[in-house]
């Protein structure tokens, strides 16, 4: 990496491996994942339970939930003048890094807000941690600016306590919160679960506005591919801890190279597709304590070959940056290039 050169990606995972170490065994939640998150764009990571998407995203803030630990690979941030190895940051630096460079909107806004402080106090507290000299007046101005940006009545919201707000309002407060220090990258973990579809639409339009107007890169974690189709620019599909496919959204939906991607799209009900074209994926998500050998998806794969049962597929990338981890493509690079 050249120092100081503006790359087209804001952050990168390089062969990262994350394990949960228990007393007698360890679970590999993320298995040698490499991914470049494009600067100024919305990248989505799609996966179901056990896919590892939340685990790998928390590595960007180095706040893996205990007992998770990065056992190999790196998570690099390119937002500053020099690349930063996030995992190797010491305590002091990581505190300055979190929220200022990368922030996160967690799943379930309800539990992210302190129930005994009003909204302004929580904003003020965060601002003070990063800037000890900030005056209350400036803090109020900043809070008001971001609350307005997310279409909330700033004066009313700043005085309110979390329990006085609806789910949609709390989620918007969390988004305003994540913007407070104007980070370069925001991670959003299922930002609209438990919210109704109209509020969901509104929140995503808001996120798109933030992305376009402020140029803030976003990493969206979700299991809902419809939302990805509408709002994301790039998408990665994860299963059982591995990145199975990655490309721009149109290419992933158009080509559906990986059998899991194909299965996932067929399994997502849509209002307009023919009923006969929709079917679930057979089998069930992998048991992380007893991961299938070879390709982790092979027990459920309709196109499973002998080699899939024993050997883990190589990761193949083509000229346009389309990544796929599947034996079907390891020798047929020409297929991807069409």
């Amino acid at each position, binding site marked *: 990496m050249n120092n100081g050169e503006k790359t087209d990606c804001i952050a990168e995972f390089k062969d990262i491996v994350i394990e949960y170490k228990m007393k007698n065994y360890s679970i590999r939640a993320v298995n040698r994942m490499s991914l470049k998150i494009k600067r100024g764009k919305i990248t989505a990571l799609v996966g179901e339970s056990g896919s590892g998407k939340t685990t790998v995203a928390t590595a960007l803030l180095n706040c893996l939930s205990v007992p998770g630990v990065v056992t190999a690979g790196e998570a690099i941030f390119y937002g500053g003048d020099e690349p930063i190895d996030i995992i190797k940051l010491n305590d002091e630096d990581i505190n300055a890094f979190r929220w200022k460079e990368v922030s996160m909107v967690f799943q379930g806004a309800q539990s992210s807000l302190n129930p005994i402080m009003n909204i302004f106090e929580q904003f003020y507290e965060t601002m003070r941690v990063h800037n000890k000299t900030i005056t209350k007046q400036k803090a109020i101005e900043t809070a008001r600016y971001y609350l307005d940006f997310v279409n909330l009545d700033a004066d009313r919201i700043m005085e309110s306590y979390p329990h006085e707000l609806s789910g949609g309002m709390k989620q918007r407060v969390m988004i305003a919160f994540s913007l407070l220090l104007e980070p370069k990258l925001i991670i959003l973990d299922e930002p609209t679960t438990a919210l109704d579809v109209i509020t969901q639409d509104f929140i995503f339009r808001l996120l798109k506005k933030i992305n376009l107007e402020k140029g803030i890169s976003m990493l969206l974690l979700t299991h809902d591919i419809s939302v990805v*189709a509408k709002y994301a620019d790039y998408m990665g599909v994860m299963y059982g801890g591995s990145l199975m496919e990655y490309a721009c959204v149109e290419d992933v939906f158009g080509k559906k190279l990986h059998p899991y991607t194909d299965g996932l799209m067929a399994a997502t009900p*849509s209002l307009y597709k023919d009923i006969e074209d929709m*079917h679930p994926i057979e089998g069930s998500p992998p048991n992380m304590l007893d991961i299938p050998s070879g390709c982790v998806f092979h027990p459920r794969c309709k196109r499973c070959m002998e080699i899939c049962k024993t050997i883990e597929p190589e990761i193949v990338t083509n000229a346009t940056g389309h990544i796929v981890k599947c034996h079907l493509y390891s020798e047929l690079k020409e297929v991807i290039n069409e």
Partner: protein
Amino acid sequence: MSSLMELKNVSMTFYKKGKFLEKEKEIKVLRNINLSVEESEIMVIVGESGCGKTTIGRIITGLLKPTKGELLFNGNNIYKLFNNEQNDFRNNVQFIQQDSYAALNPARTIYQSLSAPIKTKNKKMSQKNINERINEIMQLVGLVPAEQFLYKFPHQLSGGQRQRILMARAITLDPKLIVADEPVSMIDVSLRLSILNLMSDLNRKLKISFVYITHDLATARYIAHNGKIAVMYLGEIMETGSVKDLITSPSHPYTQALFAAVPIPDPLIAKQQKKLPIKSMDVGDLFNRSEGCPFFPRCPYAEEKCENSIIEYVDVNNVMVRCCNLERVPKWEQVR
């Protein structure tokens, strides 16, 4: 011929104690609900959180008694039946809850949870018959070999397996109607259709009617494509009719907004979708409601008369729509 189950003019009002010196607050969770479900039919109730759909589910299963209105089962008003006649109703209407983990007793094995209702209904059934029946049911819900699941505790099974157990438990009593409240919202996407397919199978094979409650229009259409749908908002039914008619051409502004908001899993189409035809972001308050149309504050086609309109349904091509101002509402254009 009366319907299998019918809700007539059902209203449900909760009272919340006001603060010191304040009057009690009235929360009108449901207003004048009229619904009917026929034998072997799938009816879907769609709405967002707070619209009252879960309350309807609890009323239909007998867990809650409405403040006004009647629940008719096979033509009989449930609230006027004596105990032994009520048994008939109770055995015939069952419930599948949303959270499969909370719906199973954590201290009992699956076998115990399944055999308990069987033993309740037939106190004298022999052990052998009970086991046979349980095996039969486990086959129906696709959990074979049964022994692999029967002696485990709920926390030892996956979400999808637990949901199937909930279905198994619901059919142990041979019900005629099952209410399923968001049965797949807590299940992985790749498995949702298999649970919905199971419900379809039970509907076809055992002729069980389903009332499927959800906020997800896409799964609603999948399961009930030959059935009926009711769209709810803030305690009232906005639009109801057959799924085929309503999905092709939603007439009510709220339904149109819902359809516009549902993202389509195809980037080429999805990115073309236009702005929502809706005025305000905030869902109304159940406390301070006018007597008229609940959608009035957010409706882009609203006029003064809507604020106080009484509940009346207009028939638009066999779909009943609660709107007094339909002329101003544009015809729905499907994005294709």
